[in-house]
């Protein structure tokens, strides 16, 4: 009797759960942005009126940019909305117990290090930096300018050769563990009734929503996905949000962007770009107050843990030097030739280091202007975009999730007004450029 019972129970649990035939909101991509969108919609809506489905093809997040990120969060940007978005994320993390805490359990711990970011400036750029710091302070960011002498006093490990000034984040900036945040979001989402589906989106079906005579307008009627066993499913939906990160361009193409004439002929300009992070050990390295320091060359480093480990990285200087995106293999020559000499010049203690490990991840790189693209597509009216954060996805994910939820739930109020970042600017060939790209 007992053996029969056990067998039938195990048979029940081995039955595959089918992907639902219809749902209200489909979110393509279950990383930080997708989970944040799902969370805010589920958290704010009344009585679970919308069924939310998150489709993620990499459920263990092995190649997800969310997990491979360096984890930094800063308020020092030159575009005002970028500052506000990061400040929103800091506020969210400060109140993470209220948002993502489960009852009677310890609050989720994202290991937030509060040491801030330090941007260094040459004499030519120092004045511009001071203006930007003023703008950031006006928006409420706690950032301060330091002269080179003050920097040397505060951070004796720094070589101020060629440095005129620097800006340091005093509160709310730092770095944290992105995977903890992702896990906490996913756990809370599942508790709020969001379905996470392990499948890959392979197509959409479109239908006309406005007559051909006055200009085509489409809606996405259903999502076609293929699960891990190779079976295909079609799910009817009301709205689709593109949170596919580096692969957003492909999802946009499946939805019809870049295929037909008119506004639909413009593809989503988001491509994957590979970036490396190198972890190394240094005796007598910079101490516990070390911020995430960004050199004038664009090379950055930060402390990792309490055992003398550090991580560093840099973006390539030109398009020709962009590494191949075929796989996530690491290029150690880039470290030896480009990163280490510059780090050792800026921090003399780093002349003696031991490289321990390295990994690579993809930026969701917006080739147009390296800034967020958010909002409904002008022609495919129920297709919402949340892409192209080009390396700032971690910091902006929470605010982007909130903004998308505001667009879905109540289209007339904004916490942070992101209407400037609509896809329309791509059609009108306008750029919003950010000076502080790392």
């Amino acid at each position, binding site marked *: 009797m007992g053996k029969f019972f056990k067998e039938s129970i195990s048979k029940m649990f081995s039955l595959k759960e089918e992907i639902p035939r219809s749902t209200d909101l489909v979110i393509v991509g279950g990383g930080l942005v997708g989970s944040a969108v799902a969370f805010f919609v589920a958290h704010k809506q009344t009585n679970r009126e919308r069924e939310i489905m998150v489709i993620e093809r990499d459920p263990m997040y092995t190649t997800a940019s969310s997990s491979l990120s360096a984890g930094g969060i800063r308020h020092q940007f030159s575009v005002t909305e970028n500052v506000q978005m990061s400040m929103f994320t800091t506020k969210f993390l400060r109140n993470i117990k209220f948002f993502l805490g489960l*009852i009677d359990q310890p609050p989720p711990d994202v290991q*937030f*290090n509060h040491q801030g970011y330090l941007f260094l400036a040459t004499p030519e750029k120092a004045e511009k930096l001071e203006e930007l710091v003023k703008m950031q302070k006006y928006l409420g960011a706690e950032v301060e300018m330091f002269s080179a002498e003050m920097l040397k006093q505060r951070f004796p490990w720094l070589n101020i050769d060629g440095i005129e000034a620097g800006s340091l984040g*005093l509160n709310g900036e730092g770095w944290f563990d992105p995977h903890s945040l992702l896990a906490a979001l996913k756990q809370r989402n599942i508790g709020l009734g969001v379905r996470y589906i392990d499948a890959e989106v392979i197509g959409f079906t479109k239908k006309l929503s406005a007559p051909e005579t006055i200009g085509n307008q489409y809606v996405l009627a259903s999502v076609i996905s293929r699960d891990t066993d190779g079976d295909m499913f079609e799910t009817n939906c009301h709205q689709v949000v593109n949170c596919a990160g580096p692969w957003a361009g492909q999802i946009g193409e499946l939805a019809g962007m870049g295929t037909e004439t008119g506004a639909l002929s413009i593809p989503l300009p988001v491509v994957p770009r590979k970036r490396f992070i190198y972890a190394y050990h240094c005796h*007598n390295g910079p*101490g516990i107050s070390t911020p995430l320091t960004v050199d004038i060359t664009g090379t950055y480093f930060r402390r990792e843990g*309490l*055992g003398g480990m550090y991580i560093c990285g840099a973006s390539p200087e030109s398009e020709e030097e962009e590494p191949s995106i075929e796989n996530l293999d690491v290029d150690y020559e880039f470290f030896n030739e480009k990163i280490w000499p510059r780090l050792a010049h800026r921090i003399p203690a780093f002349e003696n280091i031991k490289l321990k490990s390295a990994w690579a991840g993809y930026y969701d790189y917006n080739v147009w202007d390296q800034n967020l693209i958010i909002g409904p597509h002008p022609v495919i009216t129920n297709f919402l975009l949340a892409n192209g954060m080009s390396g700032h996805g971690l910091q902006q994910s929470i605010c982007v999730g909130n903004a998308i939820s505001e667009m879905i739930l109540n289209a007339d109020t904004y916490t942070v007004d992101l209407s400037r970042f609509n896809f329309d600017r791509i059609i009108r060939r306008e750029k919003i450029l950010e000076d502080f790209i790392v």
Partner: protein
Amino acid sequence: MSCFKSLRPANRIWSRLFLCQTRGYVERDPRAIKMGDLMFEPEYNRHMPDDGKTPFVNLNKMLNVVEADFDKESLKQFMQRKIDVNDIAEQRVDAKTKEKIGKDLAAAYVVVKSGGRIQFAGMDRWIEKKGSHIPLPNHNIPNLKLQVADLTGSSIRYEGLAFLEGTSIKMLILRDCQYIDDFCLSRLYKISNTLEFLDISGCTLVTDNGLAALCKLRNLKGLRINDLPNAGNKALIAAYLLDENPELNVLGVDLPLDHDKEMPETSPEESGQYSDSSTNSSNKPPT
């Protein structure tokens, strides 16, 4: 009563809950419904005169609903949220008051109102709340500097710590404050120029990263960190803080007498998760 039929359907849930023990609502409002410790109070329409009767509209509003699960845990969460919002509102000082009485006195008000006690520079007696009376002047006194703030056991929060801005506090005691966490410790940078002594014993929400954030207090001379159950590596972090600030005196941890020289001579890779930043005992490493 016939008006109940047109109220919202039965599957909606109650929301407005007030703890009435300390307020005596029963005497003030006979229309309220008391269920054990909880009081359901009708919502007053402030624009209509209150003539003591219970009009149809007000009864409808009495069953003000919110979509919350009606079980013990979420009720607890709901009440906690009410307490949070209330605390944050009470610990605030608006800009007009600050301008009128000055930053130090406004800060003193916040501390004393939250149940703490303070000392001004030049005085040697504590000023604290007596019952509900706050023995502080309500006009500006020039050259009044807040020097010591003792918030032991209070419910001061991150937003409440805004009182620190513009003050020159030398000694801050945040002992057994249940809402003080890492973000609050990072916010202490505002008094880094003057703060010389800090006590954060017993603050259970503080972790290693919060202690690391104390590196911003560059003039700190004394730090007490007893009883921090969630800060597992506090001795190591204290050692790192001492590297950068040699005048600091850390109480509440077992530091080796000379932390630099007594560390074992294994290389950091072999000694496991955390290790001392230097293995040569000849000179103190510059940081």
